[in-house]
């Protein structure tokens, strides 16, 4: 999964002098470009930006959902990408760097029975560099807790999902990581 972020400014509004600065501004602009899921097709994604309690959105939207995208076909493009080009435009202000914004992308698609299931969760910090950066984020999904459950989930199309996708960026309760089966599509 790749996301292009550019430029990423430690903006200081020109109206304020350096001494009377009360906060700093980070503007994120980029796009959720494409994903490579070798096994799945017709995917759509949802992104949102998580940040700490010292941060505030001053413009832009913190979440968005993409269209359903089909994989590029063999004879045109060997890379077999699901291209979304979903723009991300967001400006945040903050007083502390703790809680630096993180972007969470969850990818969904239809399974063979036509159920809408989750295909992967991925997250990354919004890059610290103020240049254009391409991120590739490995995606993973929680696995069923037993084989039997895996089978029923496959039949019913209700596979395990995170109650709140934001959990992937938080450290809490990750000691139960053994429940998470991490499956990474190859990054590029």
């Amino acid at each position, binding site marked *: 999964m790749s996301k292009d972020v550019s430029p990423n400014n430690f903006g200081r509004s020109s109206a304020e002098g350096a001494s009377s*600065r*009360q*906060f*700093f501004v980070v503007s994120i602009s980029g796009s959720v470009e494409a994903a490579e899921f070798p096994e799945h097709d017709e995917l759509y994604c949802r992104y*949102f*930006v*998580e*940040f700490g*309690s*010292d941060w*505030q959105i001053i413009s832009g939207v*913190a*979440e968005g959902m993409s269209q359903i995208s089909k994989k590029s076909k063999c004879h045109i493009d060997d890379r077999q990408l699901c291209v979304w080009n979903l723009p991300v435009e967001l400006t945040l202000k*903050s*007083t*502390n*760097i*703790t809680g630096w914004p993180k972007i969470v992308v969850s990818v969904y698609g239809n399974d063979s029975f036509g159920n809408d299931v989750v295909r992967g969760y991925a997250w990354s910090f919004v890059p610290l560099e103020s240049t254009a950066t391409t991120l590739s984020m490995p995606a993973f999904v*929680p696995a*069923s*807790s*037993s084989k*039997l*459950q895996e089978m*029923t*989930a496959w039949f*019913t199309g*209700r*596979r*395990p*999902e*995170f*109650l*709140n*996708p*934001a*959990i992937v960026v938080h450290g*809490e*309760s990750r*000691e*139960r990581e053994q*429940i998470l089966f991490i499956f990474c599509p190859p990054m590029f």
Partner: protein
Amino acid sequence: MATAGKINTPDAEARCNKRTQSENMSEQTQEINPRPSSNAADDGEPEAVTNLQELLGAAGAVAQFKEASPEKVADLSQIIFYPSSKPVVAEEKLGSGGRVRFLEEEGIYVPTLPSVRWNMRSKMERRLVTDAIRKKKWFQEDGELKSCEEELLENPVRPNLDEENSNIATIFRDCSNDVERFIPSSETMILLELQLNSLHFTQHPLFTAEHTLAQRLTETFYCYQKKLAARSFERMSKRLTALRHAHELLKNKSGEGVEEKLQRYELEIKDLRTTTLLQGAAERSVLAAVLAVWEELKDLRERQGFVGCPTKLTVSQEVVSEGRRKKEERLWKDAVKQVVKEMRREQKPQEEEEKENSDWVQLAGKLLKESLKPPGEPEMIIDLSQDLETSIDSKSLKAQNRLQNHLHRQKVCLKILYNGSEVCQSMPYVLDSQTFSADMSIMLPLSAVHWPQNFSLQILQHSTIKKALIAEVSLPLPEKGCTREEVPVQKVFFGNETHSGYVLCKTGWGKDADGNLRQPSGRYWETAVSCVAKKVPKTPEELQMWIDRSRIDPNNPANSEIISKAKNHALGDLNSDPLASDLDFCTEGEFKEGDARLKILELREKGHPAFCNMKMVPINARELPEGLLKEFRDRHWQQSSQVNFIEEEADDSLANHRTWALNSIREIKEKIQRQGRLSSRKKTMRELVTEDLVPDIGTLGLTLMAWFQPSRPLRPMRKPRPQVAIQGSTAHSSTLIVNVVSALQVPTRKDLDLEPSNANSFFEGSPTNAAAFNTVAVRPFVEVSFKGASARTRAAEGANPTWNCELQIPIQEEVFDHDVINIRLFDEIVVDVLNDERLRDIDVHTRHEKAWLGAINIPFSAVQRTAKIDGTFPLNAQQLLLGYEQEEQSRQFGPLLGPLESPRGSANCTFLNFFITLQPPMVLAEPETTERLECMESSSVERHLEDWSSQVTALFPDRKVPALVATANGKTACLTRFFRPIKPPEVKDTHSRTLAEVTSRFVSLIPRTQSNVCLTAEEIMKLCYGDQMSNAILLTCFLQTFDLDAWLLIGWGVTRGASYFALTRDKQSPNEMAIWDVFTGLKSKLDDPFCPATLVWAVANKDNIWANVQKESAPRRMRFDFSRLSDWSPAFVPAGAVAAPGSETVLQPESIQFTKTPSESCKELVSRLESILKENFMTWRTNLRTRWNRHCCSVLRKVLSTLENQINCKKEAMRELQPLIAAHKVMN
């Protein structure tokens, strides 16, 4: 070349075609490839020609034939060979002596041959057969032509590459690296050998009493043996003798410093003697213990009548001979004498009083007896063996068999893990029922590519269905260069709560076929050292300590890193990374200096309650609100100085007392929160991941049943879906929807100015007079406000208005539990303020006033929990609404509301009908976590109560029954402990109310805070603060002193959320039950439709807690007979295993000391309240100054005191107010 040219005439060529293939071929070759060398070298040409002629002898013949005359044509058949297409006989092909073999029949592989037409083939064969010499080369043994086998592939293997497209890049890839990685040479392979001898259990759940004793015997015996082997007593006594000898020698000498030396010796002797004696005593006690255990074991065997395990202690006593006995006695006496002498010497300086000699002897004898063998006592030689014959009678066999069966079911197997991955698993072993051990004798050679990092053994219990891990132990890795033969057998101990034991095993490096030791290379041993170094503590001080402790070799290059680190620690950070320093936003120094901003950030990270919800911590320290941290520090200091806040005496001043009490409660709350936080941090899988449950037999059965049930398409059933938490970051956006339907009994306006001055006549007169004067009785409207946002309905008319108006209030901010939805009823008064009558046609100038008529507060948590609130609720109004009057309800709604006798019902009360919901429904941010606090009850009671409440919760998930409540000292206690009849404060003037009502009013006046801590009556009185639960308990305790049965009622009120009430039953008339509200102090009947308790979950008193297990939980539809088990589930059954905590453990005091509030502080409070009122009144209007009427104030003050009396207050108050009303226009 001439010859060649001659041959190659067209005729010749045509004739040549008739010759054999091979000749033809060579001819062709000749034609195509005229040798270029022959042109160049003329010398070689004649030779070449002759060669050719020889080669082509046949060609020469043809040339002759060309020249021959036509007469000789008849001989042509002799010259020209026409091969016929008849197949050649196999024998002919092989020549003389050749035997045809049928290869295929013999089982030899015969490849498929390319298909050639049969006639062509036989022609060719004919030609070849003619050459008798060469034909062997051409034919196989089976008589077939030797030929290539057919191509297997129809298509070409290589892709059809365009020759022109040479752009494909080729990369040279060296294969040597890969080979090294994947095909390890024999030198890098490690051979680790493991020998597992046996497995012994020293603790097992199936141990019989005999086994346990035998195990104890073994342990104590080994302990004894170890003590004997150490021979410390012997050595110490020898040292003592030597020291005594030296002392004696020194005594005889004289000189400088001798005295000092003597004293030092004496001290040493004293110390050594005591330790020696202690050592001896320890040895003897261990021996005694061994013998005692053995006695016990023997006793047990005798009692059970058989021997179950072979452990045996042989005790032999060596009887002391007469001569030795005498010697021993002499020695003993000497020893006693010596000790007595020393003790006297030591005693003298301190104590003057002389003891009898016999006393000393007795004392010394006693001391020595404990640690030395007294003379004449036989010498004990004990030995442990495992060879006792176990008895084979029927009784023992039965027990043995039973044990054997159990052990068969619980086999043990071992799993060996190498670097975390399973290498091998042994077959399951059955433990020996006598010794609880299993002989394994496993030899496991293990060759590995990777170096061993951890090598461990798992011991598994292998029952029929599943395997359970008993323990995992890491096996010792062999030292450098050790083979298995060299290493002694090692005992590796394992154990958990139920099992323990040891494995006998040994490990070593193996040798390969050439006899080379196959151990890891040198670098492994280095890294093994650096592995140790990784455990090095982080701080420099600890590192230095660690270096000192472990005494690592500073000259060893492997340790140089550590040493240099330790040396350089003064220069800088230990693990400093030059790249990471870019990310350091502040220095260590700033932290230590106590930068306020950093401190707050740190505290917030730790989740300190004061800061954990703080947002946007400013970027500069100076922008922090002043005193924020100071307050925190002060409190912190207070907290550390005060161990128990409640015990501490408060200040005299009332205000100070209040703040102190509030602080105390906050401290208690925080304390409990802190204790509970750790448990709440951990989330279960269910809270993280949504997953369908595996269908079990029950649900599968139901699904199968569903197929056979008649289908009812007209009655669709909704499948319950779990509530989905709102996802994403903007989760708080939701809308509060309030649908205000109607109101009943709204007070109507009554213009007081127009009233006759005689108050009596006013009350006696018809109340409808007032309405007659006004065209509009009242124009009520409702305003709903929540967190600063508000919305209002339009104004309706009349005393019983209907709005049917939907109000929407968006919720943007984060909502806390204590937020309240405020619904207020106002009267809209339109006052015409148009001055100029002439402008009336074109101008409208009116003033809209709103007059408060009543309000109701609904906690947001109640809406959140139930998703909707719907119904008619009474409004809280003040007792005396000046300028308004309620029409008599009996006239209007008599038949509708029925005979309401409760004070609230008969009193004039406005009712509002509304409906509240949230869109979309919000899920509670975090369900209340069950905090595990230390419990005051015994563990059995605690477990029982937990089980009971989980049972109730399983039946009715909505009903929460707190059986264990938190007390002020941070522990939990059973709820029943809080009940005891307590005498309420004495009240002189009851104002024509019953004592119970006055008490209830008293309790309702105790200020409340939000806390989940249950305070006792004493604590409430001391703090002058309570919370809902504590107040309800207090009220129950008070009410028990009257002629009432009282219970604490745990339930749910629509306007309260989960709350607590008191439930009473009159002892005289058992049908009269009432619910007392702690908030208002009002009593309501069970069948009151406006009863504050809408749902009843549980009831408790000092004997028991009863959970409501009836289908209905509304009080007016319930049965309150607690003895019915089908209706009420008691926590403690009378004949149950667990009894309620007795009355002696009640936490409540027998009586409370009520201290009278000093009148000065009362006055102070009054004046303060008044000044606040005054100030607010003056600054009420922004542009105009409002006057504060002092006369009014005094009158109102007088009225206020009479309002406490509820029944007659109106008349009195009215009388008092009358002059005021006459003089001023009074609103509300």
